[in-house]
């Protein structure tokens, strides 16, 4: 049976984005991969979903990335009216910007000189995926989920972020129906730049609250 054998996906090699590949198409079929194929085909055969819907959903998720959130933050930095709308109802404000976030409920929380916000889900791995894409692996880890609520400052230092004792840390545990995006403080050096440049200062980590916005590297 023909299949695409790709030697560049051998174990231990690195993808174009700089991350190791997961076992994929040319590796031995696992029990759980077998189950994925079977469940998918049964649901299609029985008419609950279509193959086209699956491909479209994958394309939709692939198109979601931290860049979406960076555009929201950069606009909030520069457009007070939008910022007010975002703080009032972040889901509606991002939809009004043209982002398809599905049925997601979103709350924006803003960092300042006095307050630093950080987001976690201690019960599972809730994340604003319909805006920012799928969460990083560490966000789903036992270490982050367990420690972020009891020693957030220590956790933040492991991300290279040391906060003054005078700054209040607000940990947001995504326990139910809301998802959260942090609006990081705008760095002084970025003030006055046009929005397309500002977008590059906003990192994924700064929107989770484990980093700050910074000059593009």
């Amino acid at each position, binding site marked *: 049976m023909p299949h695409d054998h790709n030697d560049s996906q051998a174990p231990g090699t690195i993808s174009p984005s700089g991350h190791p590949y997961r076992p994929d198409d040319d590796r031995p079929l696992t029990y759980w991969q077998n189950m994925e194929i079977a469940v998918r085909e049964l649901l299609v055969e029985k008419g609950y979903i279509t193959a086209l819907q699956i491909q479209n959903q994958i394309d939709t998720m692939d198109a979601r990335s931290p860049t979406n959130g960076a555009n929201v933050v950069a606009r909030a930095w520069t457009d007070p009216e939008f910022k007010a709308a975002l703080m009032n109802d972040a889901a509606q404000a991002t939809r009004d910007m043209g982002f398809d976030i599905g049925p997601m409920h979103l709350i924006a929380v803003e960092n300042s000189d006095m307050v630093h916000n950080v987001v976690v889900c201690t019960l599972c791995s809730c994340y604003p995926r319909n805006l920012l894409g799928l969460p990083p692996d560490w966000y789903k880890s036992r270490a982050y989920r367990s420690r972020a*609520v009891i020693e*957030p400052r*220590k956790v933040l230092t492991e991300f290279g972020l040391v906060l003054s004792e005078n700054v*209040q840390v607000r*940990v*947001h*545990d995504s326990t*139910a129906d*809301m998802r959260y995006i942090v609006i990081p403080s705008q760095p002084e050096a970025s003030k006055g730049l046009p929005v397309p440049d500002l977008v590059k200062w906003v990192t994924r980590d700064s929107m989770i609250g484990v980093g700050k916005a910074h000059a593009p590297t």
Partner: protein
Amino acid sequence: MKVRVHNNWPPGHVRTPGYLRGKTGEIERKIGLFSNPEQNAYRHAPEQRELLRVRFKMSEVWGANAENPNDVIEAEIYSHWLEAV
């Protein structure tokens, strides 16, 4: 308004974190009505329950072990897990 989280430990699916049960906090905002996850999880037609964001001081949650007593935790808690204090 101050509220206390019920100190209940049912064995099934609930969305109230254990570390907040029995703890007292301040309502940060009311979010609206949402399906009760404790029914949704078992495919029982869910009732609509009020969902509230509650702010807890680290000192209330972790006592003397708090990393910084003035830091806070905010979480969404369904109304049937809360009582007014």
